């Protein structure tokens, strides 16, 4: 039995750890095109900004791979999966046979076509890998100005890292505000102000229609849709990320939004599993099959995949979309719907300076929340939304008044009631 993982981030790590709890001996090979042991991907911002040192990028001990008897092939690209031969084909043609395969290739930045933007233009980067942050740190020695196209989470995080090392940074966002998928007018204004107060400029409602280069083919600026011209020496493309399904192209492995997986994280091909940002699974909010690209989901799916790969039938029940980020001391947390879908849903908002709360209700249930400032009870709301639990008038009062202690106490009391004995899973 040979376990092979393509990818070496949270999902693959979860699978390795789950397998080794069950199967201590059979070989595991993990293959990654990045030349590092597993590192905290979301930390690349902090590494660039200087607040996280290199040794703290690694979230497992140095002997993790040897201790777990894992062969790590790092800095090696997988070209293709041959499902019929049950082999993974590496660049250069080497083939590695698998008995159980996990595809955990994560996401891949999406760069739309823009006039003047060719692969030959220098100093243009995406921002999802440590090497991207390293490239920025290098560019920052020579250049003083950066433009970040896209005001989503990755754009914000890239901006924060660049700003923290003294680069004059401007975010250009097509939507009406930063984090436009999650934030509304009020919270968007608070977030923008927080960015601006800390030195990051924001330009919203427009995007780059042309990329400008100098005589050395280095990026020198952009022309916006409204014909304004902004100068820069560094350009970051942060429009979005899509599941990185390159290795399963032309295979029978079914792909929709991401790689299709069932409740055991199996793909449509026997003995091939997928987990993390590359996989779609159940969105508990709407019942649809979607990609929820966050660390906790990647790790949890990896664990479930690993248990099933090692022969212990274990179910993944799905998750609600959610995210959490802090920008310059301002925590922002969203779970479920962040604005009402239609008139069958109802919003309630509570604004007090930089503290903002928004709840979305449907049929007497909480279906979404946005918290800014005080986020300390966010997990309780996640629990309510995920559980589709009916809210009593008392619970609604607690929500409205922000009585976080009462809400927490309620959940604790409820969970400590005796429950029927857990059913044992068939091995």
């Amino acid at each position, binding site marked *: 039995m040979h376990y092979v993982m393509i990818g070496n981030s949270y999902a693959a790590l*979860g699978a390795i750890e789950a397998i080794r709890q069950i199967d201590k001996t059979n070989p595991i090979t993990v293959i990654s095109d990045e030349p590092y042991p597993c590192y*905290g*991907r*979301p*930390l690349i911002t*902090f590494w660039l900004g200087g*607040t*996280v040192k290199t040794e*703290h990028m690694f*979230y*497992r001990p140095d002997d993790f791979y040897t201790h777990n008897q894992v062969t790590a092939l790092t800095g090696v690209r997988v070209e293709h999966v041959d499902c019929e031969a049950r082999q993974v084909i590496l660049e250069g043609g080497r083939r590695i046979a698998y008995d159980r395969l996990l595809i955990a290739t994560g996401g891949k930045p999406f760069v739309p076509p823009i006039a003047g933007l060719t692969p030959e233009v220098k100093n243009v980067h995406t921002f999802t890998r440590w090497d991207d942050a390293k490239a920025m740190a290098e560019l920052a020695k020579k250049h003083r100005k950066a433009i970040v196209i896209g005001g989503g989470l990755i754009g914000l995080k890239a901006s924060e890292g660049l700003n923290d090392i003294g680069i004059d940074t401007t975010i250009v966002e097509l939507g009406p505000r930063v984090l436009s998928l999650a934030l509304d007018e009020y919270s968007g204004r608070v977030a923008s102000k927080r960015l601006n107060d800390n030195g990051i400029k924001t330009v919203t409602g427009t995007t780059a229609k042309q990329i400008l280069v100098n005589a050395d083919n280095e990026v020198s600026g952009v022309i916006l849709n409204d014909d304004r011209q902004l100068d820069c020496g560094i350009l970051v493309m942060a429009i979005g990320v899509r599941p990185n399904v390159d290795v399963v192209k032309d295979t029978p492995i079914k792909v929709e939004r991401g790689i299709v997986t069932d409740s055991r994280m199996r793909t449509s091909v026997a003995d091939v599993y997928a987990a993390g940002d590359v996989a779609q699974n159940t969105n508990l909010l709407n019942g649809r099959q979607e990609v929820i690209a*966050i*660390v*906790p989901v990647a*790790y*949890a799916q990896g*664990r479930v995949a690993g248990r099933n790969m090692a022969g212990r039938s*274990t179910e993944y029940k799905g998750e609600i979309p*959610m*995210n*959490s*980020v*802090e920008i310059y*001391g301002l*925590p922002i*947390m969203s*779970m479920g719907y962040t604005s009402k879908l239609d008139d069958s849903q109802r919003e309630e908002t509570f604004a007090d300076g930089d503290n903002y709360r928004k709840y979305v209700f449907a049929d007497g249930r909480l279906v979404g929340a946005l918290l800014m400032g005080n*986020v*300390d*009870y*966010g*997990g*309780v709301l*996640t*629990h309510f939304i995920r559980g589709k639990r009916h809210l009593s008038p008392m619970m609604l009062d607690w929500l409205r008044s922000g009585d*976080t*202690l009462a*809400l*927490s106490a309620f*959940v*604790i009391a409820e*969970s400590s009631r005796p429950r029927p004995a*857990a059913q044992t899973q068939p091995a």
Partner: protein
Amino acid sequence: MGYERCVGCWMCVMMCPFGAIQRIPTAEGEHHGVALKCDSCLDKEIVPCIAACKPHGLKEVNPIDVSSLKRLQAAQRFAPGGDGKP
């Protein structure tokens, strides 16, 4: 809890159904690090806050190991070259 590893993303707060994780305010009024008062979801195979922790600041530990580590650290402070000033 490795406080020096916490970057303040609050993913653990988002995943804790009990509201048992609180942000710790610093003297400057900013929040840094998290406080835990919990039984670590004993019935769960995957502990949600630990699964959510990006830099591995949160990890499952054995109380005996932690206790001996703390005692070792305390002893080292008073060892020659330590910064303890009894």
